[in-house]
Each structure stands twice: as C-alpha cells, then as structure tokens.
C-alpha cells in the first residue's frame, strides 16, 4: 500500500490510495464478521439449550433413537473437502485472477449443492420428528439453523459465480468472492459443532 503523499501545505492526498482492499482492511470483512458473530451466538445458544434440556431429562434422547450416522458423517467429509476449493478460490480472488475465480466458484457451488443433497438424507434419518419431544425439537432446530445457512450461502455463491462470468466486474467483486469464501469457512466450522452435538450428543 502506497502511503499517501503529503503535499506541502496541509492537505492529505487520498487520490493515491487504492479503491478496494482485502481482509480486515475492508468494511465488508467486518460486516461479514458481524454476521458470523450473530449466527455463531445463535448456534452456541442452541447448543447450550440442547445440553440444558438434556440435563433436565432423565433419559436422552427422550424416547427416541439417536440419528443415523451415515449422512451426517458424509457431510462432515464433504464440507472438510470443500475447504480446498474454497481456499483456492479465496487466494485466486486475492490475486484478482478472474479465470481461476470462475472455475473455483463453480466448484464451490457444486460442493454447496452436494452438501444440500446430503442434508436431505440427514433429515430423513434423524429418527425423530420436531414435534415428538423437546429432544426432537432442539435437534431439528440445530439442523434447521444450519440448513438455512447452507442454503443462503450456496445461493450467495451461485449469484457470485454467475456474476463473475457475466459481469459487470470490477476489483470490488474479488473482495466479495473472498468474503464469500470466508463465510463458507464459518458454515463448515459451525457444521462440525452441530454435527458433534446432534449426532454424538445422544450417544455419549
């Protein structure tokens, strides 16, 4: 970053400054962080509610079986794998490599859709309905919250992927791609927490 040149006299010349920036330099990064804090808190509180209800219950799960492990664990693998194209796309965006970004975004979208398909499998093998008991309700709430994030981030990624192909394009769009990738990391991290609680909370 070129430091601004101070003209003799008392003006600070901003015209030499960049017109976009990546990472914590960017307001967009902070906006995304704010969203992550909020959503992270919702997850954290829901997980606490899970353990709170569990502490009040003599048996857990309450008259139900824990969820089947297959689909959930498959999603863990898929999401961890998705970190690869995500990181690759993020770095491509930071060096403003349009071709790589286009490829990367397409791959990320494919992963997002795949995770959503697997999610359908998870819901169908949860072994409890949301209205059976409080255990079922909190499990569905955790899964539902995460699914909302998955859906919105996949949609975000689709919109960005299309935009990076059709344009109009400018430097700021690479920042958007980088932020979208960063947000996907949060979706993955929150999945690891939700998975642990939903799929193993009833077994341990």
């Amino acid at each position, binding site marked *: 970053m070129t430091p601004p040149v101070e003209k003799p006299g008392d003006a600070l010349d901003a015209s030499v400054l960049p017109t976009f920036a*990546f990472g914590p330099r960017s307001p967009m990064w902070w906006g995304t962080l704010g969203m992550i804090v909020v959503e992270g808190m919702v997850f954290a509180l829901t997980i606490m509610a899970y353990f709170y209800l569990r502490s009040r219950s003599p048996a857990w799960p309450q008259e139900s079986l824990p969820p089947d492990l297959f689909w959930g664990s498959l999603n863990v693998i898929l999401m961890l794998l998705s970190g690869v194209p995500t990181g690759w796309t993020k770095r491509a965006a930071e060096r403003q490599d349009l071709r790589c970004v286009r490829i990367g975004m397409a791959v990320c979208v494919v992963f997002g859709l795949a995770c959503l398909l697997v999610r359908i499998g998870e819901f169908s093998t949860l072994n409890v309905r949301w209205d059976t*008991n409080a255990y079922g309700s909190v499990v569905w709430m955790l899964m539902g919250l995460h699914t909302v994030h998955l859906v919105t981030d996949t949609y975000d990624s689709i919109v960005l992927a299309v935009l990076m192909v059709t344009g109009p394009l400018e430097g700021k769009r690479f920042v958007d791609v980088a932020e979208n990738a960063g947000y996907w990391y949060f979706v993955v991290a929150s999945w690891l927490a939700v998975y642990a609680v939903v799929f193993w909370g009833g077994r341990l």
Partner: protein
Amino acid sequence: MNIDAADEAQLEATWRDPPGWLGAISAVNHKTISCRFMVATFGFFVAGGILALLMRLQLAQPSNSLIGADRYNQLFTMHGTTMMFLFAVPVMQAFAIYLVPLMIGARSVAFPRMNAYAFWIFLFGGVMLYVAFFFDTGADAGWFAYVPLSTFKYSPTKRVDFWAQMITFTEVSAMMEAIVLITTILKMRAPGMTLNRMPLFVWGVLVTSVMVLFALPAVVLASTALITDRLVDTRFYSPEHGGDVLLWQHLFWFFGHPEVYLIFIPPLGFISTIIATFARRPVVGYRTMVLALIATGFLAFGLWVHHMFATDLPELGKLFFTAASLLIALPTAVQIFCWIATLWSGRLWFRTPLLFVLGFFAILLLGGLTGLMLASVPLDLQLHDTYFVVAHLHYVLLGGAVFPLFGAVYYWFPKFTGHLLGETLGRWQFALFFIGFNVAFFPMHLLGLQGMPRRVYTYPAQTGWTGLNLLSTIGALAIGLSVLLFIVNVARSWRGGVVAGNDPWSAGTLEWSVASPPPAANFNVVPVVHALSPLWQPGGTPSHVTGLSGEHREVLITSIADAEPDHRLWLPASSPWPFVAAIATTILFIGSIFSPWAVVWGAIPVAAACTMWFWPKQDMTQHRRSSEVPP
C-alpha cells in the same frame, strides 16, 4: 477550510436524496434514515405513553371498571413492548446513526443500504403490532411473555404470534444497525482520530453495538422456539414433552438484561458530551470513562438470573448473580464521580440540556440504589413482581435513558434542524417532567412494599393502596403534559426557532464544525484530527483530506486503531431495493404467523430483492474500473 461554491453544489448533488416518492423510498443518506427513525421511535414513545395513561386512569381508583381485564392485559403488554422494543433501543441507534459519522469526520455510515433496510423493517414490524392491537389482537402475555402462558395452549389467539414476529422484525433491525455502527466506527474515522481521540459518545455506541451482536441472538432463539412451538408444535417449552419453562426465562433474560444496558449506555455518552460542553471542559478521566463503559458492557452479560430469583434455581448460583448485580454498580458509580468532578472543576453554563442531565443524576442514582436492593435474593423475594420493581425500572429507564435523551434532543436539535428549541419552554418541560416523574413513580416503591403486585388491573379498597395510586396517576398526567409541551416546542422551533448557526453551544466535537443542518455530504472537506476535542484544541498538519471524488459517494477507509488512511470506497447511491426487500421480508414474517410454508415461499421474493440489491450496475462499474487503484 472551505471549498468553492461549484464544488459544494456538486458535493450536495452527489450526496443528497433524490426527490419525489421514488426518492423517498430510495433514500440512503444516513441523516435522512436517522431522522425518520427518530420520528418513528418518538411516535411509538407517545403511543406507549398514552397506553400508560390509560392504565393509570384505571388504577386511580379501587375496583375501577374503566378498563376491563382483557384490555388492561393488552395495555400493559403493549406499553412495555412498545417502550422496550419500539422506542428505547431503536431511538439510541437512530441517534447514533445520525451523530456517529459527523463526530468521526465521515461522510456516511458503512453500509447505507443496509441501514435503510433496517429502518424499514423496524417500521413495518412496529406498525404490524399496532394494526393487530387495533383489531383487538394486541399482545397480552406481558412484554416478556413467559411460557407456558404464551404457548398456544394458554394463548390460543394470534396475539402472541404477532408479538413474537414483531420481535423478529426488531431484532433483525437492531443487529443490522449494530453491524453498520461497528464497521463505521472502526473503519471510517477521519485520519488522526485514533481510538483514544474518539468522543466518549462514540465509544458508548461501539460498546453498545458489540453487545447487541452477543445479546440479540438469545431473543432470536427464544422467540423462534416460541414461534415454532406455537406454529408447528415443537416442544421446547412443554414440560410434558421434555421441554422446560425456565429455558424461556434463561434465553429471554440473557438477552433482556443486556438489553437494558443497550438502552443505558448510549445515554451515558449523551451525558459525557453534554457535561463537557456545559462545564466548558473535557470530562475528567477519559481513559477511566472508556474502561467503565467497556466494563459495564461486559458485566451486563453476567446478571440475567437476577430476574429469576423467585424460581427454584440453586442458592449458590443465585449468590453469584447477586454479586455480579452489585458489581456492575461500580463502573457506573465511577462514571458518576467523574462527571461530578467535571462539574466541580468546570465553568457551568445552565441550559436545558444540562438540566435534563442533572435530572438524570437524581433519578438514575435512586434507581440504581433500588437496583442494589433488588440484587439481594431475600429482598427480591418480597419485591419481585411488585410495584417496587415497576418503580425501579422506570427510575433507571427514564432517569438513565429518557432524561438524557431529552437533553440530547435539546442539544442536537439545532444541528438537525438549524433552529434552537425554545429555552423557556424547555425549562418548563423539564420541571414538569421531573416533578411529574417523581410524583408518579416514587409512591410505587411504597405500594410494592405494601403488597401490591404487578400487572393487576384493579385492587380492593381495603388494601389501603388507593391514595398512592391516585397520586401516581396525577404524576403520570403531569408527565403527559410535559411531553405535550415538548411537542409544542418542537413544532414551534422546527422552522421558527432561533437560528442556530454551525455551533450554538461552542462545543468541542466535529459535528459542530459543519452547518446546521449539515450538508448532504456532512463535511465539505474531510478533516484530519489531532486532538480529542478538535474544535477546542489546536489543529495540526495535515488539516484536511483532498483527492476524494465530489461526483461519486467516495469515502475514506482508515485503519482500526490509529485511523491511518488505507483505501477509498465508492458507497452506493440511492436504491429502492432495501425498501423492496423490506416489503418482501415483511410478507415472509407476517405470512409465517399463519403458515410455516410462508418461510419457504416467502424466501423467494426476498432472495430476488436481495439479488437485485446486490447486482452491480454496468455504468457505475465502468466508472469505478476506469479509476481503479488496486491494493
């Protein structure tokens, strides 16, 4: 530092809102949004006040039949809900949205369109609640809606559903405003405004906004679980199915206690600002004040169980929360001592803003002390859910927030409108409000001790509570009269008051360096800051920023701690999409009161509106690309 008339006109044309009705829904200038927000929240304040007056008229006499049980239950629920969700928190955010950019030398807030969306969504949620109320579907389970009373089994009408959805509207609004404010404060301060040169009000807004991000999610979860319990039979709050009634209380109060500090901390910033100006010196102990704000914000999260002392939680746990509830008095006490020290060592100029701040001292102090009483478990067991608590909460909320807020209005009204509010009428309003407030609420301490519980629509004459209730009602009428005086003062002064000029108070912070009302771009020339009180202390070089475009809404982004110039951004100009997205969101939220499928189908127009909102315009992109400087 001035610029020539042509540049000034260009800047104005670039930053102002477009005309006409399309312009009205497309406006994103932070001052416009903020003024709408302030007017809306004040409207809700008056509505909530009228509801309170009706309650007081009913309680003025024993066994009164002015208002029956059902209507009364709606009144106290709507009063509390209005004041807490539709007035107290949003008004502070509204003031912050106006003042923060001006105080930090910025031309805008960080996300102007999201700011606009947050206003619309707030407005629609509040209007929805009142439309329901006018159709006899007003919320009636109390402003904190304890389960199981608020579950479908015991509240089978749509009343609680409208209440819970209003929460959704206002929580989304508050969280977005918090993100806007945090990002603005961290990334858009004028060069040279390091963190320790930031005005105390801005610190207060920063602390409050961070708190919002951690506190609001709890009510998001609580209300969402209530909505799903009511709509699709989840079992979070049904003990018969493994749920727990205290889960609601924990989640709600984990939000609810910090919420009162969301209401209290920005006014602490008002007070610091007003005292500094009217004591003609900066507040004593800047660093101490900042630490006190941060400590208050942090500790606020550790108190929530003191709302639950009458439940069966373990005694040792309750003791922890007693200790925390006592401890939080300390940072506030330290702030009060710093302010007294400032008054002690200043040259005092008595104007209405200072009078309201002095009102705060008396009233909040008393309210804080009754808070210490309520922090004690044994005392709370007698006082909880009685009129003593009603007295306490009004002393801290009106003393701690509304008095400073009126002071802030008298202080900044000249900046917003270019005219001063009438000083004489202001003093009358203050006197009537102060006296009326104490006459209305002090007796309630005694009523609580004498056995009067909360949320009762009447009482037998034999209890002996009549006299104090009647006195309280008279005080409430005096408060109403004082608010009327205020409205008259505003109406007369809006265009007809004494012309203010840039700086009627000869104050120290940046907002007073620009015209009243400020130009659309706030600053014709973005300043460089060299001191905590830039208008009082000598400047330095460089003194201002050049090189920002006047034809586009270009702002300077600086670094977090030291506000060193980092890069430039073009902020979006007016756009109707925040309004459209808010309409779509409203349809989704209101639809989901009636069917869960509204969430699915309603998401489609919301997604479409957000996509249009985001989708860049060809011509703007070309412009930016042609002048792009990569990092």
